[in-house]
């Protein structure tokens, strides 16, 4: 029989003003097993904790119930106090009589009665508590960053600079990400490549950073401190150690009709290609789907022209298995598909483009070598219309409910750059709101209007139609309350951004939670913004929510610090509230295994002695290092063999009974 001590906290007047603390003590003292009950002003104070420690020693207590604030607040405090007095910290239960009682009830009678019942439930539970031992698990001093954009690069650099090994896995043939596609950046208008390339080079040169490009994460197992990850290095068909990056192969490649992804399909590329000139690594890949050699078996031009003999058609995908202590997700974003926005004629007119396409058009290395021209007839436009919020702030299924955050600013940038370089081009921006929170942002936008004469019209465009080589824009000016019907040469859509479509697959592998928009969920919206609720998984960049470059870089650094904080530990303490299977009751039916999100349950053929019957049975075994203690298995188990330590069937039933008594 447990010897239980009950400690009722006044919390100043927070509890004592609505709960008759003395009556709670009196009632608790009568409960079976209770040998000590007292109250105190502030149980969490050093003096309060001392009372607990003294009582444990004097009365030989084996179980502690503290009636106080939420266990989310001070459970740890009281567990530590108990531990210091020599009893197992998991022999402590909290009755939440503040948040769940005194703060929400006014009537003292009612509140006191409820506090007594909550205390009773905690006493009933602690009666069945058993000492639990936390285990420890190792921390592998190596981090994985998934995604090699600016977020991933920055995170990797910061972790590596702190002295830990980092691997970057990038799906495309080069690191650089979206930022490498941008021409200029707001609000300072510096060239994107000029500020990104040095970072890329730094990452590539860093002796603590290993970069896997053209690679994907294939499988993740393990848990915080010790994830095991399979990385699939897709066959590049080019030997990285031999290639000099001379580029002859790309020039000579006869298959040049593949839409160029880097230029958003505005021009084409060869089947063997590097996405862009500054690519890191500067080693091409063969796109096997479009390569004549792979399609027909004939050709082999690249192999013939390669002086270094780097072309290797036989190369196979390779799986690299590596252990990591922490994983950072930096999978970034893409623009949404516009197939549901027919009113803007995006899919029918080549002169209606997205902002990201405009970036490529404006870029000196882009499809037009930086000349602003219409994609239909390659003539320079005389007027341009920008439409904001295309697919953002949408309540219906066509778009996204959120604000994409960056569009207002890049549109101002585009408008400004165009007016600067081509002053004769009329630029009109249709907007709903102009949102410019950020340092020097509103000033930037005002300059576009005031200095560069960009025409901002409040009102969404209803329709864009092609008419005689021109685009007819039908809108409305909400300020003047008049219809606008204007002809223009180009229309640029500020297309909503969305998380990279691959993120759902990755999140599932990582058991990291994801919201309805596919953004990864942070552990706490305010206080833990760069951590996933899944321990050991961190978030960097737009995968967590829309953000611009400075914010991304800031978050990348923050994620890196969190990773470093984790990797700096020698070992981690594991949660002892894990599932446990009673092998005498287990049928080996596999129901539990199917619902375990952590792959913590496996099966063994085990010799059991069931009351004298000896036989070999297939029984479930829980890996307590993997188990996170959710309890899904305990309900899936029909025989009741699976139970959860710390929240056992009998403990919860005891609470139910005590409450309903």
């Amino acid at each position, binding site marked *: 029989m447990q010897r239980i001590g009950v400690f009722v906290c006044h919390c100043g007047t927070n509890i004592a003003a609505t709960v008759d603390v003395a009556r709670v003590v009196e009632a608790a003292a009568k409960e079976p097993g209770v040998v000590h009950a007292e109250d105190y002003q502030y149980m969490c104070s050093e003096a309060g904790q001392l009372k607990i420690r003294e009582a444990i020693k004097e009365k030989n207590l084996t179980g502690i119930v503290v009636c106080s604030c939420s266990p*989310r607040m001070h459970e740890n405090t009281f567990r530590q106090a108990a531990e210091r007095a020599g009893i197992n910290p998991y022999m402590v239960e909290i009755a939440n009589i503040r948040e769940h009682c005194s703060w929400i*009830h006014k009537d003292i009678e009612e509140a006191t009665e409820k506090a007594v019942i909550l205390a009773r439930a905690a006493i009933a539970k602690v009666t069945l508590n058993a000492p639990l031992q936390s285990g420890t698990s190792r921390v592998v001093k190596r981090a994985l960053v998934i995604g090699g954009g600016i977020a991933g690069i920055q995170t990797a650099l910061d972790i590596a600079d702190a002295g830990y090994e980092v691997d970057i896995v990038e799906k495309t043939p080069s690191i650089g990400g979206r930022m490498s596609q941008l021409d200029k950046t707001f609000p300072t208008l510096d060239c994107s490549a000029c500020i990104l390339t040095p970072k890329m080079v730094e990452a590539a040169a860093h002796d603590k950073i290993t970069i896997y490009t053209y690679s994907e994460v294939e499988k993740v197992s393990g848990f915080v401190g010790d994830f095991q990850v399979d990385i699939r290095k897709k066959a590049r068909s080019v030997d990285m150690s031999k290639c000099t990056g001379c580029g002859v192969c790309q020039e000579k490649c006869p298959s040049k009709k593949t839409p160029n992804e880097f230029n958003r399909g505005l021009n084409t590329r060869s089947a063997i290609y590097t996405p862009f000139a500054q690519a890191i690594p500067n080693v091409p890949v063969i796109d096997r789907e479009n390569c004549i050699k792979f399609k027909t078996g004939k050709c082999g031009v690249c192999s013939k022209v390669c002086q270094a003999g780097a072309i290797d058609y036989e190369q196979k995908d390779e799986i690299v298995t590596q252990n990591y202590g922490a994983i950072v997700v930096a999978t970034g974003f893409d623009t949404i598909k516009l197939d549901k926005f027919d009113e803007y004629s995006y899919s029918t007119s080549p002169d209606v483009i997205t902002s990201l396409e405009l970036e490529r058009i404006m870029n000196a290395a882009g499809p037009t070598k930086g000349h602003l021209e219409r994609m239909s007839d390659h003539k320079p436009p005389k007027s341009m219309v920008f439409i904001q919020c295309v697919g953002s702030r949408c309540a219906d299924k066509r778009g996204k409910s959120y604000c994409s955050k960056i569009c207002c600013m890049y549109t101002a940038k585009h408008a400004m750059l165009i007016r600067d370089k081509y002053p004769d081009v009329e630029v009109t921006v249709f907007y709903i709101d102009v949102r410019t929170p950020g340092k020097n942002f509103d000033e930037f936008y005002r300059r576009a209007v005031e200095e560069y004469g960009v025409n901002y019209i409040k009102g969404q465009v209803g329709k864009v139609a092609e008419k005689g080589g021109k685009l007819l824009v039908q809108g409305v000016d909400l300020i003047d309350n008049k219809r606008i019907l204007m002809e223009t040469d180009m229309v640029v859509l500020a297309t909503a951004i969305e998380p990279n479509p691959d993120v759902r697959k990755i999140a599932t592998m990582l058991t990291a939670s994801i919201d309805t928009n596919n953004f990864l969920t942070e552990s706490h919206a305010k206080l833990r913004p760069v951590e996933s609720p899944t321990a050991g998984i961190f978030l960097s960049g737009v995968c967590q929510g829309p953000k611009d470059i400075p914010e991304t870089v800031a978050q990348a650094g923050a994620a890196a610090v969190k990773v470093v904080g984790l990797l700096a530990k020698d070992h981690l303490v594991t949660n002892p509230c894990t599932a446990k299977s009673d092998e005498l009751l287990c049928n080996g039916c596999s129901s539990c295994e199917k619902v375990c999100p952590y792959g913590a349950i496996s099966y063994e053929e085990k010799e059991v002695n069931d009351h004298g019957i000896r036989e070999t049975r297939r029984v479930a075994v829980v890996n307590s290092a993997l188990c996170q203690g*959710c*309890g*899904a298995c305990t*309900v899936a188990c029909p025989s009741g063999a699976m139970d959860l330590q710390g929240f056992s069937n009998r403990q919860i039933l005891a609470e*139910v009974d005590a409450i*309903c008594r």
Partner: protein
Amino acid sequence: MQVEKTQEFRPKIVAFCCNWCSYAGADLAGSSRLAYPADVKIIRVPCSCRVNPMFILRAFQRGADGVILCGCHPGDCHYTTGNYYARRRMTLLFSMLDYLGVENGRTRVEWVSAAEGVKFSTTMNEFVAKIHSLGENVRLGDLRCKKD
């Protein structure tokens, strides 16, 4: 056994709340001083998927008049998938209880995030009101557990 007709009906309500979202939501309701009747007593479980149908039946056996299960919103489960299993289990269980002729308002599932103190409080107020309208649970109780 005589039930005092004059005495005001004070329902017994058990609320199972997952540790990560709903229990925190209840804490937020508390720190925001959002009142709900004292008839509701919360049991903390790690996840909504920890709640066994037997716990719910047991509560009714012991005289509970209503049982509510709160967990993280689908997609937000701390354990990724727990509430999806809970959702199926509870849907089927509630449907079965309804089929047996138990008033279906006596059981409820609500997804309450840690940020939804208001929702927690409103939900509990609504639920208590519903149980008041249904009255005492007689169809799923155990006579032996009635205090006489």
